[in-house]
């Protein structure tokens, strides 16, 4: 439980930094930090494999790409609030409302028995997850490979320097 409170106290400011910091590089680094915290949450929730994948894929690859893009574009820090104050206000309002509602739902969520069931043997292990992945979820798994291929081809085609007309 202590771990949770520490995580909560660190994650929320980090997440706020992501969306509020004017310098996108800081946003990205804060995002990495947030993702790390989420990975630790996964470990605490007995999802070790997912935690490592989170770090390898999200922190190790995705955010690096984002950071790359930010640096290549050499962006100036964003000046706060010019001419879209109504949208900002609406955004704050909607997000706050949504957050409140979700918290309220989580608090009254019916399907949360007080005593936790003991976890099955090998819960969250590579073998068990792989078993689910290659039996019950085989079709989506195969489809992800198609998705990735499409994404790779799409990204390459778009990012390629145009030659000719």
């Amino acid at each position, binding site marked *: 439980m202590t771990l949770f409170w520490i995580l909560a106290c660190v994650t929320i400011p980090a997440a706020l930094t992501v969306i509020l910091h004017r310098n996108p590089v800081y946003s990205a680094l804060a995002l990495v930090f947030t993702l790390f915290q989420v990975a630790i949450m996964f470990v605490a929730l007995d999802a070790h494999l997912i935690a490592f994948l989170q770090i*390898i894929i999200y922190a190790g690859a995705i955010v690096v790409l984002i*950071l790359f893009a930010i640096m290549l574009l050499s962006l100036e820090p964003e000046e706060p609030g010019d001419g879209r104050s109504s949208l900002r206000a609406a955004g704050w309002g909607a997000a706050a409302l949504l957050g409140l509602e979700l918290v309220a739902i989580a608090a009254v969520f019916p399907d949360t028995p007080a005593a936790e069931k003991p976890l099955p043997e090998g819960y969250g292990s590579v073998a068990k997850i792989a078993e689910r992945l290659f039996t019950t979820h085989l079709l989506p798994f195969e489809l992800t490979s198609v998705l990735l291929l499409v994404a790779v081809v799409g990204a390459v085609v778009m990012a390629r320097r145009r030659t000719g007309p």
Partner: protein
Amino acid sequence: MEVLISLAKVIFAFVIVLQLTLVLLWVERKGSALIQDRVGANRANLFGGLLPFNLGIVNTWMADPLKLFHKEDIVPADADRFLHWLAPWIAIFPLFVTFTVIPFGDVLIAGGYTINLQGADLNLGILYVLAMLSMAVYGVIVGGWASNSRYAFLGGVRGSAQMVSYEIAMGLSLVSVVLTFGTLDFQEIARAQGDLLFGVFPAWGFFYQPLALLIFFIAGMAESKRAPFDLPEAESELVAGFYTEYSGSKQSVFMMADFVEVAIVAGLVTTLFFGGWQVPWLYRDGFHFPGGFHVFVPSLLVTVLQVLSFLVKLFLFCWLQILIRWSLPRLRYDQLMDLGWKRLLPLSLANVAITAVFVLLFDGKTVW
């Protein structure tokens, strides 16, 4: 007591790394001198020149660090001061914690305790290593960006692109190793290599996965950004790459990160492909040579031998990397990318496929 033992193990792993960086610093200077037919570090000397020769140990182990840590820390104008300070620590922290999962010996049974000689026994060790190594890229890219210098920035971008690219081939080569041994746990992999092939040879990973060894070693060297893959810090083009604007202790931390990475690559190669702490034909109760010849060795001594064996192999592979660094010319950037994406990646993919077929054919058993 348990906590103390764990702490001792982590500290031991940590000490190995720190000491190794010092030794490597010395080897790098004196060894390169040897390779290039120079004298090398020979100024400061202990005992006022009582010895007939100077190994340069004082230079490299005391004078250099002292100098580095006392130099003025210069932060360029317009640099992002916070990130400039943060970058070296981002670079070195994941590397330090990586070494804790590499086992340096089998279990030690002493005083009623069974101690697993491994900093932290994690059953997803290989994933952990991949995760931590993928974090190291942030030090480079943030350091390069925060310096507000073109050289540094270019070095940072080069470095991160290089590391992200080679991570893939590295991860895939590890996949075939994982397929071969059927586990992600370093200690189990090391133990599995205690078997014998044909009853004679030690069943080291490199017999099963020579191609993976090659790919992993090359990719590992590229990950540590050392020659011939030192594009991010290419002196002749980028001054010193991503740490051009670093000086003093911060710069020394970056250098240390390099050496730690060398040590990690050596440690991984040792553990995955060369039996880790295994000594050929040495078991808990002594040597069993092929042909039924048996020599008794006390259990404690066995452990000592194992740790020694690990350290010797570790050092050998560190030396091999330094040797390569001082022998081979630097690649061009397009050659680097070419090697990573068009050679190593397809090769490692093919290796995974072939390994998978073999594992299926032999029912996951190492029947050779």
